[in-house]
């Protein structure tokens, strides 16, 4: 297995400070992953088995999407379900048959919630039986707020998917080597995991192709029926920082080798990601330095806006480390990186790159706060007065009213931010509040409340 070294082995460099607070922070419920996953996996249907609370969240969080005949629905639990007066099996069967009849999906995802956890509904036990009876694959993911935050919902779904072999998968080990052709260098099969929009999939695939690396498959694929063939000994690499369960599943259950790389966010991250993959395959990279420089050249205007400015991540979507690293490289000073959950192994290479970037920029490594406490953070924000706070919508307007620029963190999850091409998108988002407020400066004072 190719695992990155432990972070604290790097004795020559300054150590990263990790802290853990109370976990009283605002984030989206992980069931929100259905919002982008049902669009990504075109022949899927997501059934969220939960209460009105879950439904209300989805309805409000996903706003307008709800009216476009989404391929997801709530299986809303009623009092009879909670008190076990109704049979879970019969109830789920009735709903799934209805979904099958109305929408004819290739797969139904059951999203377990807090309620199914508490009442210990045996979704994993029911699914195989029901699957056989209605002859439709059922994938169970427990994306609940008891255990996970926001984007980790995708992790639970992909981990569940990773356990299911493609129906076409044969017993033998498959081709262990991608044959070299004119376009590709000979190397073991590589499967990438993480849900990103199709254009970005194409962009990253092409970046690798330029280096002669062939991508054998993506998890998830555009359609459930096109799940990649994954064999023992295949190499896998993640594109998102919140996919540690998926990585673990691929290593332990599917016996794949994980390439621990920084994530392809920002031109620096993308280059490091490509280089790491090539290094593992023993491929000499071509023209990456020029490519990265080209991109930085394009970002010049945006970099000039944020150079020397400070930023504070309150933490809610696990993209924080990668974004902070990219922003430091762009010249920003990061005061604090809040993050819901920190997998130091899976994010090891990313943490190393963060260290390296800080050293290169000659700034101290920001403190990383796991399970932050929003109340304390607001106190610190008041003291530090950062130029920009990246935060959830619950705090954005109140902070703006107090004269503090904010960027709504969820937008980073829904925007296209991966690869060389989309680096500009990230800075577009980060600089938007600064650009907007520059234009409004003449209205009146910056503060719109007297209270605290």
């Amino acid at each position, binding site marked *: 297995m190719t695992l990155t070294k432990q972070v604290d082995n790097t004795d020559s460099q300054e150590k990263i400070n990790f802290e853990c607070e109370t976990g009283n922070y605002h984030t989206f419920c992980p069931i929100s992953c259905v919002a982008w996953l049902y669009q990504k996996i075109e022949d899927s249907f997501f059934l969220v088995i939960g209460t009105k*609370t879950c*439904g*209300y969240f989805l*309805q409000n969080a996903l706003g307008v999407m709800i009216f476009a005949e989404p391929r997801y629905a709530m299986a809303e639990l009623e009092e009879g379900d909670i008190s076990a007066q109704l049979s879970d099996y019969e109830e789920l069967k009735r709903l799934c048959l209805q979904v099958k009849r109305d929408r004819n999906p290739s797969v139904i995802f059951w999203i377990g919630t807090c309620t199914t956890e508490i009442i210990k509904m045996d979704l994993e036990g029911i699914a195989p039986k029901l699957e056989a009876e209605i002859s439709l694959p059922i994938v169970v993911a427990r994306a609940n707020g008891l*255990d996970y935050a926001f984007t980790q919902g995708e992790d639970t779904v992909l981990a569940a998917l990773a356990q299911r072999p493609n129906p076409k998968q044969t017993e033998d080990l498959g081709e262990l080597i991608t044959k070299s052709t004119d376009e590709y260098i000979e190397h073991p099969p590589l499967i990438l995991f993480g849900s990103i929009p199709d254009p970005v999939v194409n962009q990253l695939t092409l970046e690798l192709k330029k280096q002669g690396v062939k991508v054998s498959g993506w998890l998830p694929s555009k359609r459930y029926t096109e799940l990649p063939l994954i064999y023992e000994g295949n190499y896998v690499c993640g594109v998102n920082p919140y996919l540690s369960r998926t990585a673990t599943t691929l290593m332990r259950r599917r016996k794949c080798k994980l390439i621990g790389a920084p994530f392809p966010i920002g031109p620096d991250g993308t280059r490091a990601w490509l280089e790491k993959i090539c290094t593992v395959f023993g491929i000499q990279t071509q023209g990456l330095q020029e490519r990265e420089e080209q991109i930085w050249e394009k970002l010049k205007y945006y970099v000039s806006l944020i150079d020397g400015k400070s930023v504070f991540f309150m933490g809610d979507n696990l993209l924080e480390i990668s974004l902070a690293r990219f922003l430091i490289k762009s010249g920003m000073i990061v005061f604090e990186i809040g993050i819901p959950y920190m997998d130091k192994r899976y994010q090891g290479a990313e943490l190393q790159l963060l260290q390296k970037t800080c050293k290169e920029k000659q700034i101290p490594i920001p403190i990383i706060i796991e399970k932050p406490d929003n109340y304390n953070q607001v106190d610190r924000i008041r003291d530090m007065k950062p130029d920009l706070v990246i935060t959830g*919508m619950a705090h954005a307007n*109140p902070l703006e*009213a107090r004269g503090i620029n904010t960027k709504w963190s969820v937008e980073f999850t829904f925007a296209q931010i991966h690869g060389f091409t989309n680096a500009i998108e990230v800075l577009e988002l980060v600089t938007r509040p600064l650009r907007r407020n520059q234009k409004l400066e003449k209205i009146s004072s910056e503060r719109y409340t007297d209270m605290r």
Partner: protein
Amino acid sequence: MKLAYWMYAGPAHIGTLRIASSFKNVHAIMHAPLGDDYFNVMRSMLERKRDFTAVTASVVDRHVLARGSQEKVVNNISRKDREEKPDLVVLTPTCTSSILQEDLQNFVNRASLETQADVLLADVNHYRVNEMQAADRTLEQIVQFYIKKAQKTNQLDTSKTVEPSVNIIGSFNLAFHNQHDMAELKRLMSDLNIKINSIIPEGASVQDLKDLPKAWFNIVPYREIGLLTAEYLKKEFDMPYIDTTPMGVVETANCIRKIQYILNEKNSNVNFEKYIDIQTRFVSQSAWFSRSIDCQNLTGKKAVVFGDSTHAAAMTKILTREMGINVVWAGTYCKYDKSWFEKEVGDLCDEIVITDDHNLIGDLIAKVEPAVIFGTQMERHVAKRLNIPCGVISAPVHIQNFPLSYRPFLGYEGANQIADLIYNSFTLGMEDHLLEIFGGHDTKEILSAGLSAGVEDLDIKWDLESQAELTKIPGFVRGKIKRNTEKFAQQQKMETITLEVMYAAKEAAA
């Protein structure tokens, strides 16, 4: 289990949070898993609040599941007590705490020993009540708590104010056009020389709740939230209340007459008839508007109405009684309020629909094909799909239903706003008339690329007379009529369009 992807009313805890966070200096602590504090986002986003929402979560995680909340809830309550120094902390159960069945009351009792703040456990059950019922109950609970507290400490003063005065019960956040309604009600009361004793809960302090009995009477403008409190105050202090929603000129007059009746019962000898008359005829434009020629075109038009019981009932009354519009069906998602709704609008529409199933409502709209829909955001989207105009009259709502400009639905200015909303929702007047004459609303088919290519091939000509006639048609419908006529001519294999062809096309389209 129920298959659903949209709901009209939210879960119970949202109702409790709406009440708690409407009060000044009240903090709500949710006993909930990570991510359930979505309420803060809604409040900060929809109402664009400048202050942090006074709602935090005592997070239920895997540890809590295994060992129970133990000290966690108590610690969170005392912590908020220290940090924010609230007057009251409301511990709010969610669907999760409903099934965990922890003894939350015990936590409240223990916490209140060491806090400066009062501590209450919201008496709501996720599986029994919805957002509105929970809000109604929470408001009653808080009022009751502070009245009893004042009684115990002998601080309750039940003597009435010298001047006639009123409590307005039902001002709260995330409600439909609420702050504008409140401004309008205040203006109405000031016109009638009635002092406002208090408005609860928005912006009110719980310490002042003990002064509620000083008012001469209560007004509950929306029946979803506030009735329980009004009934409690009636039972306890014999305070009369008015639950007539002053929405539309007729109901506003009814409401004012009820106020007059109550004041006269208390020997204050007032007569508001002249005020009603002047307001109706001159201040509000909507009564005159209903009689104006333009509004004749609305007569007998088919409409459907759906929303919460307050707004759906009031809207049905306005459409039928004040505008002469034919309400094919009226409905509400407040199922628990069925009998009241039926009583109120039974005579005013052909059919009543009580459901919280948005699919059923969508199907019913498609079946009836009304000229206009008045409903919630959901109906607006159904309307868009069916290409029917729609006016939003009730929650659930989106950010665009929290307008910055003054848009009350209540009182005389509210009547003006509603008249505009109704009128602008129809395809009307000249446009409608001309479309009738020259046929057809359907432009989708004739706009298709294939057809216009065909028209060019056929090279259809307009003769001089028909050309002249075409130029007389106002610009905004000319294109439609031209294309419609050409389509007809093409189908009939005619090469030249004459006046005759134009009228024939109109007939064919009718």
